[in-house]
C-alpha cells in the first residue's frame, strides 16, 4: 500500500519534540530535529516499549524502559540492550501537514 498518509499538523511538533502516531494500524514515532522530521517504528526492538514516550536528544532517541538508544535519522542502534535497528519511514511536510509513507 504505497503513498503518503497525513498524520497531523507539523506546527504542533516543534524542534526537539517526539510524538507517536497510528498510521493505518502501524505505530510510528515522528521526531523533529531542528526542523527536519524523521519517522520510525514506535516500538523498541528490545521489548517493544513505545519510543515516542522516550527522550529525544539531538538525533538520538532513548527508550523509556531500558535505555536502548537509536539514531532517528537511520534507525540504527547506538546503545543496547536492543540489538536490531528500528525501521524508518519516508516522511514529508506538505502545507503544515506531516505525511508518512508506510
Amino acid at each position, binding site marked *: 500500500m504505497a503513498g503518503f498518509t497525513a498524520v497531523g499538523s507539523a506546527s504542533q511538533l516543534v524542534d526537539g519534540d517526539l510524538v507517536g502516531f497510528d498510521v493505518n494500524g502501524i505505530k510510528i514515532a515522528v521526531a523533529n530535529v531542528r526542523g527536519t522530521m524523521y519517522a520510525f517504528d514506535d516500538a523498541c526492538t528490545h521489548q517493544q*516499549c513505545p519510543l515516542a514516550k*522516550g527522550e529525544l536528544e539531538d538525533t538520538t532517541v532513548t527508550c523509556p524502559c531500558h*535505555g536502548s538508544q537509536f539514531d532517528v535519522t537511520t534507525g540504527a542502534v547506538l546503545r543496547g540492550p536492543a540489538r536490531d535497528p528500528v525501521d524508518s519511514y519516508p516522511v514529508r511536510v506538505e502545507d503544515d501537514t506531516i505525511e508518512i509513507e508506510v
Partner: protein
Amino acid sequence: MPNPFVIVGASLAGATAAVTLREEGFGGGVILIGDEDHPPYQRPPLSKRYLRGEQPFEDALVKPVDFYASNDIDSRLGTRATHLDPIEKTVELSNGDRIRFDKALIATGTRNRRFPIPGLDLDGVYDLRTVDDCDRIRDEVVPGRRAAIVGMGFIGAEVAASLRQLGLEVVVIEGGKGPLDRVLGKEVGQVVEHIHRDHGVEMIFEELVSGFQGTGRVERIVTQSGRNIDCDFAVVGVGVEPVTDIVVGSDIEVDNGIVVDEYCRTNVDGVFAAGDVANHYHPIFKQKMRVEHWHNALNQGAAAARNMMGTASIYDEVHWFWSDQYDYNLQYAGFHREWDELVVRGSLEERDFIAFYVKNGLVAAAVGMNRGRDVRRAMRVIKARTAVDAKLLGNDDLDLRRLVLN
C-alpha cells in the same frame, strides 16, 4: 611479539572490553578468561524474562558465540584466574597455565554473600548469579508451589515478581523494614511493597533467618524470633561482595573492590579494573563508588579498553539502572547513600512518579516509576551539579530540561 592484553572475567564488563579493543582497532593479542563454561552473557534476564521462560539464553549473550574466535579473541572459558602479579605481569590460571601480559583488566565482578546459616546447603536452597543457578530455580517452578525469598533487594523483588507471574505462592523474609528500604528510603520502598502485596506476595519484615530445615531438602525456614515458614524451595538474595582474590598479596589497592581512578587505572601501571568489582573515582560526584549495574559494566568495560589502548577516556557516566517488576518499570539514576530531602514529582499513590534524592541542595539521584523520559532528563540535572529549587523539582508541569538550561 609484545605480550597480549589479558582480561580476567568474561561477563559483561570483561567481554565488552574485549569487543571494544577489536572494534577500536587494537591489533595485539587479547585473552579473555572466564570461570563459567558459558560464553559471555548478560545477567538482567536471569531474574526476569529468562527465569520466566520468555527468552532463550542466546538472547542474553553479549555477542554471538563465534564472535570471539572470528575476531581473534582467545577466550578461555571454564578457567579461573587464581593470581595476578602486577610486577611480573603474569596471571596464573586454575589449570596451571601462567600467562604473561602487557596490560591486564580485572573484571571479576561480585559474588553472592553467603552467611553461615544452618541448613543453607540443603537441597532446594538456591541463590542466583549464573545461568546455571537460574536453571536450577526454573526446575523448581511449578504453579502452586510455595517459594520463600530471603532478602528483598532488587534481585529478591524481581524474583518474587517473576515467580508470582509464573503462578507460584511467594513469601519473602526481609531483615529491613521494607523492600529496598535501605537504598531507596521508606516512601519509595512502600510503593514497591504495596505493588507486591497487590500481586499476592506475602512479606515478612524485620525478621532474620536462623535456619533452613527439612529432611533431605528444605521444608521450612525458621526465623530468629521463632517463626516457622513453610516452603517448597528457597532463593537467597542478601547482597554481594566484590571478588578481589586474584590480587591478594600484590600491591594493587583493594578497598571495597579494586580501587581505580576515572581512567579505570589501578595504582599499579598497566593494570585496570571495570564493572562490579571496580571502586572507581567519579569526577562528577568527586568520590569513589562501586556500583553493580548492567549499564556500568557495559560502559566502564568499554572505557577501560580505550584506556588500555592509550586513548585517555574519562569515565564519568551518570550511573543508571532499571528494575522491571510486574508491569512496573523502575529506573534509578545517579548515586546517593544518604539524602537531606526526598522531592517527589507525580504521585506515589498512583505509582506514577519520579523522586529526587537531594543532598546539600544538589540532586544526587532520582528514582522513577514508569517515567523513563523523566529519569533520562533527571540525569542531566544530576550531571549539572547545580542547586535546584525543590518547588521546581516537584512541579510536574515544569519540563525538567528547563532546570538545566537556566
